[in-house]
């Protein structure tokens, strides 16, 4: 008997306190800011969310170096880098809109959950006005969704999945990097002219959004060239030893192996494939070939001599000879002692593009910044003329097809540009089947 009375009282007490607790927030008014994290003082904070551990840690480290360089240039330090070659002259080297640029960093661990937690704390605790970064498309898409929800701009870093600006596109998210469809469109004709029309290919694919869209794009373009697919095998992102995936390739009857892997995954799978002697084999009377659709110098470095002669595509390469590239390579090289990777390049561009859009819009409000970025045409950032398409927030520019150098002249000179595929060859309509299904929605300023 007494027990039940106690329970009721306990419950009543808890309920009363809980009710008071729930009502308490109503006493206070919401913040007076017009949008999330409106900068009030003399500085503005950007959030750099990159993988510092996991299979993409190398790329994340290089991204962070480029971010720091970009902040230095925006604040008027260093030699100004690509600020001098950028076609828009809105930035004056006095920060953004006169406010000094500060930054906070976070580790995504190459995991969506951790990346979102890290981005959330940057927004809620450190007052970041913009989040950028995200190696791995899974992370980029997850973070992009979070930024849309929180009402800040997301400037995507190294993300190559079609979905980032396809079915998962968001009004607050923008991507400078190219995508799987563009890689496949550029590689298809090059591969068929290099290796012939009648080829059978086998694919190993990283098992997440990027791998899926990369594999689908490659399949479509290669089948268009008359090639036939033997098999597409999915490998978990955390895999480090690919021997068990390589062995079945030998007896599959395929004469080309396509590695839809990036970063540490690609380094390991390519090394495994070469160790199995795949490249010395002759199948169906043809030399066995390996293709890596998405290439980078960091991966080429990791895989060493194994990359010689292997074809792939890349967003940008430091050996290009335009003024923007030269300026960027010079200031990056002076500061860190080696040339930047494509990951470093794309995040540097994204930071500049964001800052420039704020200047041109005259505000940090995500909706204003988004409008300034939509349909923006620029040049001088190392890729030639580029368009930020309004319909899906994807940049359109030339795609480089590269090959591992047979005789590298230095430890950085690992890739040579085989062909620059012009932008109109890789452009697609926003409702292309590879990209349809999503909607940008409305821009969200939060607050």
């Amino acid at each position, binding site marked *: 008997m007494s027990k039940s009375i106690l329970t009721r009282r306990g419950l009543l007490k*808890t309920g009363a306190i809980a009710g008071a*607790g729930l009502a308490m927030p109503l006493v206070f008014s919401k913040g007076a800011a017009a949008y999330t994290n409106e900068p009030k003082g003399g500085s503005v904070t950007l959030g750099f969310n990159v993988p510092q551990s996991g299979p993409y840690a190398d790329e994340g480290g290089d991204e962070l170096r480029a971010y720091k360089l970009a902040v230095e240039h925006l604040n008027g330090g260093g030699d100004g880098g690509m600020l001098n070659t950028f076609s828009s002259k809105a930035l004056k080297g006095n920060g953004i809109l006169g406010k000094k640029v500060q930054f906070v960093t976070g*580790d995504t661990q190459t995991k969506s959950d951790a990346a979102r*937690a890290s981005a959330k*704390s940057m927004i*809620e605790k450190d007052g970041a006005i913009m989040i950028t970064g995200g190696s791995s498309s899974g992370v980029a898409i997850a973070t992009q969704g979070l930024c849309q929800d929180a009402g800040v701009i997301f400037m995507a870093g190294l993300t190559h999945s079609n979905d980032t600006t396809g079915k998962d596109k968001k009004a607050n998210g923008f991507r400078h990097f190219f995508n799987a469809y563009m890689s496949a469109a550029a590689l298809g004709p090059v591969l068929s002219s290099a290796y012939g029309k009648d080829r059978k290919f086998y694919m190993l694919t990283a098992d997440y959004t990027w791998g899926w869209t990369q594999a689908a794009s490659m399949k479509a373009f290669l089948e268009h060239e008359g090639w036939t697919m033997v098999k597409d095998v999915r490998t978990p992102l955390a895999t480090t030893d690919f021997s068990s995936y390589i062995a079945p390739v030998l007896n599959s009857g395929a004469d080309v192996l396509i590695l839809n892997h990036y970063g540490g995954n690609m380094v390991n799978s390519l090394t495994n494939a070469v160790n199995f002697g795949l490249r010395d084999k002759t199948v169906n009377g043809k030399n066995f070939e390996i293709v890596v659709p998405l290439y980078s110098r960091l991966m080429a470095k990791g895989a060493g001599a194994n990359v010689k002669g292997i074809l792939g595509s890349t967003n940008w390469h430091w050996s290009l000879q335009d003024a923007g590239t030269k300026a960027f390579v010079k200031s990056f090289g002076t500061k860190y002692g080696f040339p930047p990777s494509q990951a470093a390049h794309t995040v540097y561009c994204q930071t500049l593009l964001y800052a420039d859009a704020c200047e041109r819009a005259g505000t940090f409000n995500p909706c204003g910044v988004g409008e300034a970025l939509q349909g923006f045409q620029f040049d001088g950032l190392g890729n030639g003329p580029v368009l930020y398409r309004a319909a899906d927030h994807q940049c359109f520019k030339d795609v480089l097809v590269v090959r591992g150098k047979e005789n590298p002249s230095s430890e950085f000179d690992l890739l040579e540009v085989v062909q620059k595929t012009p932008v109109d060859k890789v452009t697609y309509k926003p409702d292309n089947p590879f990209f349809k299904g999503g909607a940008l929605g409305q821009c969200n300023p939060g607050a």
Partner: protein
Amino acid sequence: MMKINLNDKILMLIVTVVVLLAPFILQPFAEGTALAQFNAGYPDLLQRIVIFGIFAIGFNILFGLTGYLSFGHAAFLGVGSYSAVWMFKLLSMNVIPGILLAIVTSGLFALLIGWISLRRSGIYFSILTLAFAQMSYNLAYSVLTQFTNGETGLQIRLSDPRVLDGAATNGTLPSTNILPPSLVNGFEMRDTYQLHLGNWLFQFNTGYYVTAVILILAFYLSLRIFRSPFGLMLRAVKTNQTRLNYTGINTRPYTLAAFVISGMYAGLAGGLLAAMDPLAGAERMQWTVGGEVVLMTILGGAGTLIGPVLGAGFIKYFENIFSKINDTVLHHWFSFLPDGLQNFAVDLIHPFVGKGWQLTLGLIFMAVVIFLPGGLVEGSQKLAGLFRRRTKKTGGGPDEQHHPKTTPHVAE
């Protein structure tokens, strides 16, 4: 009959007050000062501390009372998250149906796994649960991708049906709420109210208060279980299961019930995680998450009521605050030292903060296990004991009533 005594009421009251005032308590330093780095009173971290507190409270019902050590509770957390997100996609952005479904599905899942795993005890039980968790992780990661969206994680989209909410009209993604914004504003999980007091900024988040109230209820339920005959039976299982069996008692229904209850707590935590941030990733089911809750419980004090919550808060604080201290921050702290000394000091501390936060946590964990086997709770009891003896010597006041008394049955 066992009933809630005065000490339990005081404990309950303290928990309630601390949890409701946490946005103040964890924000002790003014904005803009060097120490503001250590402030933890922002919504995301507060939510995480409370949610993992619920997770650990549930885990403690199994591990603390029966001694069965499960490494597989991450699976229930993940199942809860996926269920909740599916509810947000299909039915409504209101969190209540999502959380209810999360509890139900994780309970059923726990029933299945528990029914099989509890045939063994000790290390074999641990291995079985670990195997199940790893299996669930791999299923979520690469097999059932149409339900889980694999590595990318399950997210809500504009095109989801959301039968009860109707179609989104203005092209913005709806956010999770406890009362629909069409009825009353300000009850979306992400709504935060700010209070400026001098240089201090306090943030009160609707989502946090929803989790806080649920934590208090969950804590109360766990208190009732601890003090019930059922709880006594679970302790008997821990003390000597063989003897219970000899006296003709079938212990399986009791352990299975404890397993299912703790699984439902984990599902509740998973559902809440999804309610705060509508995304469910497969890594939530990884064994490391299952290991983390074990650490939380042991660090705080297994078998104690408040211990798991303390442990959860401690670990989450470390994960989010210490991992943020990078070299730039360190240089800022030691800027008063001459250059050489400054670099030396930074190099000395560098391995223990930032990316190295787990190293610090590991050292603390070792120290706790070696010197305070009862966890942080034992530590605070020792401190309180010291204090009490001293005050008694000096003829201090009737302090006994104002301290949470040693909860009996601390883990042996």
